[in-house]
């Protein structure tokens, strides 16, 4: 019954779904899998330890934190906010698209902008809703939900689809260490390079989305 070996996958799924501690879940899943596959405890500990040490590369991002932290202390986020505030006369879709583009660039350069609490709520949403109101769209609860949903989404698109363009991003390093562990010699620079097409495409898709959103809001203002 080989299928029993999948118990580790099941443990990860259930553990994450029930919000158990992530690290404990992963370690338990590994140990149980090793045991049902007939590995001795010593073999399991050695495999786990060997791989953990050889994959310290996945945690190299730590050495980029001091520089980024000092940049924040000297107003990195504030200047990003100033920049987007300086945009005048944009439509709702364009405000959201410009934010997505900035967020994409920031993620690709590993600049932390603070995400939903520090950027989307105080800056993007008021600007996007203000732009809609300026076009004569009544910002009802329903319209606000659409605009706010799209604003929050633009943060996620930029964050997810561009972060791997940075060589030191934890996702990039995870890809490298998983493939190296499987016996394929890839480097962070190669993975980062091949992450660029998707980052660019995600902004293009975002642009289409922005045009559609503006059209939808335009119909409302005409009513």
């Amino acid at each position, binding site marked *: 019954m080989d299928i029993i070996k999948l118990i580790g996958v099941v443990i990860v799924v259930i553990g994450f779904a029930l919000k158990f501690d992530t690290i404990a879940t992963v370690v338990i899943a590994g140990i149980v899998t090793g045991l049902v596959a007939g590995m001795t405890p010593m073999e399991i500990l050695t495999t786990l330890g060997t791989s953990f040490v050889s994959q310290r590369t996945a*945690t190299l991002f730590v050495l980029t*934190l001091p*520089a980024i932290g000092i940049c924040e202390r*000297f107003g990195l986020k504030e200047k990003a906010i100033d920049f987007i505030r300086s945009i005048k006369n944009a439509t709702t879709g364009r405000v959201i698209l410009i934010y997505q583009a900035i967020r994409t660039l920031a993620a690709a350069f590993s600049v932390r902008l603070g995400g939903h609490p520090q950027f*989307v709520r105080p800056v993007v949403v008021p600007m996007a809703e203000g732009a809609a109101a300026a076009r004569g769209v009544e910002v009802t609860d329903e319209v606000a939900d659409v605009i706010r949903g799209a604003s929050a989404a633009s943060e996620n698109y930029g964050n997810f689809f561009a972060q791997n363009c940075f060589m030191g991003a934890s996702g990039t390093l995870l890809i490298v260490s998983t493939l190296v562990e*499987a016996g394929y010699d890839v480097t962070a620079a190669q993975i980062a390079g091949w992450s660029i097409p998707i980052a660019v495409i995600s902004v293009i898709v975002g642009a289409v*989305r922005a045009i559609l959103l503006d059209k939808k809001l335009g119909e409302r203002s005409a009513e």
Partner: protein
Amino acid sequence: MNFGQILAEIFYTLIGIIFILVGVKALKDPGAQKKGTTAAFWFLLAFTFICGNWIPKWIVGVAILAMAALTGIKGVVQSASDVPDPAVVRERADKFGYKIFIPALSLAFSAVVLATLGSKVPALSWITANNSICLAGIIALIVVLCMTKAEPKYAVIDGTRLMDNVGPTGILPQLLSALGSLFTAAGVGTVIANGVAKVVPEGNKLIACAVYCIAMALFTIIMGNGFAAFSVITIGIGVPFLIAQGANPIVVGALGLTAGYCGTLCTPMAANFNIMPAALLEVKNKYAIIKSQVPVALCMLLIHIVLMYFFAF
């Protein structure tokens, strides 16, 4: 050991020192909860980074178990950090202007430049891709210290502050690749591969790309975590059905993780990204963000499959 490897060990030791300082910060914080367990976690982690390469690996395995026990009992918490005062930051932002982006950009640029030099110039082969990330972190630190004239102690204060923010989950990628190798040793990949082989017609590359990307997204939807899905699905499907069939591992890996993120966009399980922000933005429908994201996610997933089919083979 060659010079590149020695340099890498030096960098791992530096990372270990940052972990130790996060632990010390917790011990010194008078208001901190669970000081002992928090510090123990960071010291153990530092131990695996600094000594890991030189000791029998089962000891590292034991340290991992101990760390998992500490986070499992919720014993690791954040301690107080020296958070910059918003008014002071605003004042400095006005003084420095957009120049503050220079050190941030120098981080990514110097990493790329160094990695390229290291791979092209034989005399610089000690600058491995990994070492170039660390060197870039140090170059960016020097640039920001010179530009802002900040006291060097802030490298420590802000480094530990951000590391504490990231918290224990920062080691998740590393732990997941260790889990991946345990799965491989236990033969989990083979089991998944045999199951998938029953569904996927052999040799059909387009279907293999589609199955890999869709499985990545579905697994992420279930688990809410693209990283975990990536290690399981890449070992179970990506390696046997794509890479072993001649697909370029770089393209498969790079597109694989972002294909998983298409799933993140669709799932309430990724509460940090999709549900908590909905509350923060005071939307009436708590699924408003997911509703907005699903069409984009499906479109992006399709693009991933097409790109992988054309560029991986």
